[in-house]
């Protein structure tokens, strides 16, 4: 898809948008959320504790932390696939439940989760079809999205005829089908090899710039989090808490290219996230401008 056909307003550079954000309704607002799972024999697991997080419209926020620290749980709470034990979650000013019913977000999981009996096109059109969009409009939209993820040649293939990376791209196209203002992604590139992964990251940055969507992105990879995000949320396990939030200022989405990975500031941020993850309390990280 060419840059010219982008329908959203011009991609907002991250920095100047900051002032506007304060008056805007946040994309996601998590206030004092705990999540306690009660297992068999009354055993409880505190998956999340006192989570406070605000995601501005158009902002890219990554959740990173060791396995079991509650990243997926937090994402599922925002998606209203589960409910918090205490606290509130609002999405564009609505309750999480209302936001789900109003289709305010698109979601992509670690597995592609395509329906095996549907072609690539039919899989991408699934949410549109379920919500009663006419077939002509569906066709136009799926063609557009296929071009966006570079799979136009595979429109009529079935998922089992695609590689894992291609399936994942179809899943991402599907999550974008209804042009959501918020994307929730749980390790969507987890199953991909390093090369495909980097290409997908670049594509995702471009897609977000083109659509202006806010993203909450769960990942295990520090460079991935730094490369993609405006802010990186570092979490700690048992109980799952937010340890720190690092603002990454690597320029607006549209300015980020492959060369960024070689950039000095990029490495600086990577090592900051690493230090935060490993639990040392680096002095004065918070709020320090990194440029």
């Amino acid at each position, binding site marked *: 898809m060419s840059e010219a056909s982008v329908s959203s307003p011009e991609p907002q550079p991250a920095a100047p948008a900051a002032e506007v954000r304060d008056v805007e309704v946040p994309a996601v607002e998590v206030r004092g959320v705990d999540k306690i799972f009660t297992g068999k024999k009354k055993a409880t697991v505190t998956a999340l504790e006192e989570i406070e997080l605000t995601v501005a419209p158009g902002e890219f926020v990554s959740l990173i932390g060791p396995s079991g620290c509650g990243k997926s749980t937090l994402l599922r709470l925002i998606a209203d696939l589960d409910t918090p034990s205490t606290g509130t979650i609002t999405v564009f000013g609505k309750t999480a439940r209302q936001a789900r019913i*109003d*289709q305010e*977000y698109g*979601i992509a*999981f670690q*597995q592609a*989760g395509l329906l*095996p*009996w549907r072609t690539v096109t039919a899989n991408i059109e699934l949410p549109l079809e*379920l919500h009663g969009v006419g077939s002509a409009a569906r066709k136009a939209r799926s063609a557009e999205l296929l071009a966006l993820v570079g799979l136009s040649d595979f429109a009529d293939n079935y998922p089992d005829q695609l590689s894992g990376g291609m399936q994942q791209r179809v899943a991402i196209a599907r999550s974008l089908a209804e042009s959501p203002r918020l994307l929730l992604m749980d390790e969507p590139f987890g199953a991909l090899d390093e090369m495909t992964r980097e290409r997908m990251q670049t594509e995702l940055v471009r897609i977000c710039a083109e659509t202006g969507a806010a993203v909450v992105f769960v990942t295990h990879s520090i460079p991935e989090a730094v490369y993609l995000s405006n802010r990186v949320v570092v979490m700690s396990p048992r109980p799952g808490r937010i340890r720190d939030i690092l603002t990454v200022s690597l320029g607006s989405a549209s300015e980020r290219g492959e060369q960024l990975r070689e950039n000095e500031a990029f490495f600086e941020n990577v090592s900051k996230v690493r230090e935060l993850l490993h639990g040392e309390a680096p002095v004065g990280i918070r709020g320090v401008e990194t440029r």
Partner: protein
Amino acid sequence: MTPTPARTSNSRAPRGNATLTRIGFGIGGILLLVVVWELYKALGPATGVMIGDLTILPRTTDLAMPHVWDMIGRLFEDGGTGRNAVPVWLAVLRASVFSLGVAAVGWVVGVVVGLALAVLMQRFRTAESAVLPWIILSQTVPLIAIAPLVRRWGSQIEFGDFSWENWMSVAVIASYLAFFPVSIGALRGLNSPDTIHVELFRSYGIGWWKTLFTLRFPASVPYLLPALRLAAANAVIGTVVAEVSIGLRGGIGRMIIEYAQQASGDPAKTWAPIFGAVAIGLVAAGFIALLGVLLRRYRRGESPA
């Protein structure tokens, strides 16, 4: 007993050369059976093979084991006098079509009931724990025991122009055997979608009914097809046996008994309705195979194991 998707791979829609190979093997199998039959008849002892008092191989007399060509030849001779003065094959064909019709009605009713139960059990956990034991228990009741009951209850049903007929009792018994594999297989199939798919539909804000038709039913096809095949086999067996125990005329079950009574004078004729019963089974199996081809889109996820 529980059907699994893996089973269907045996009957996966064949293509091109594979089809020819399969047909070849099928014909080869039948020829082999004929050869073994005739060889044993020619070489085996007339009194059969015994260990102690136990007969382990049958007598080879014409009475016990007619020649294959006699059985086939008999098909083209008249079945008897008067009303029966038609070639045996025609009589068998008529009886087979009749029984197949009754079995088909029983199969359809069984499939509908089985699916309804499976949907109910999928929807309500409590229904599963309340109904499933009864479903399993129902299959332990011997057919001979329920046949007279069904007939008696049926004969009390009468309203308006409708009156219960014996063939309906037979169809009910066929459906009684057919619904079981369907309900079990369909329940597994309806519960088979991955969590990720179920949550995806939830994230789309789609309700249970729409999820049932767009996700659960398509996903259940690999489980449903072997269940439907079992149900078809059960319906055919149930029909033939119930025809005998209820005493329904016109079907293959009754014909088997009638011809068997003439066995001493006409041994080859006994086999004619048995061929008919086999033919019914083949038609039923063919129908399910056709269904499998029509639904092949929904079987892509099947494991090749």
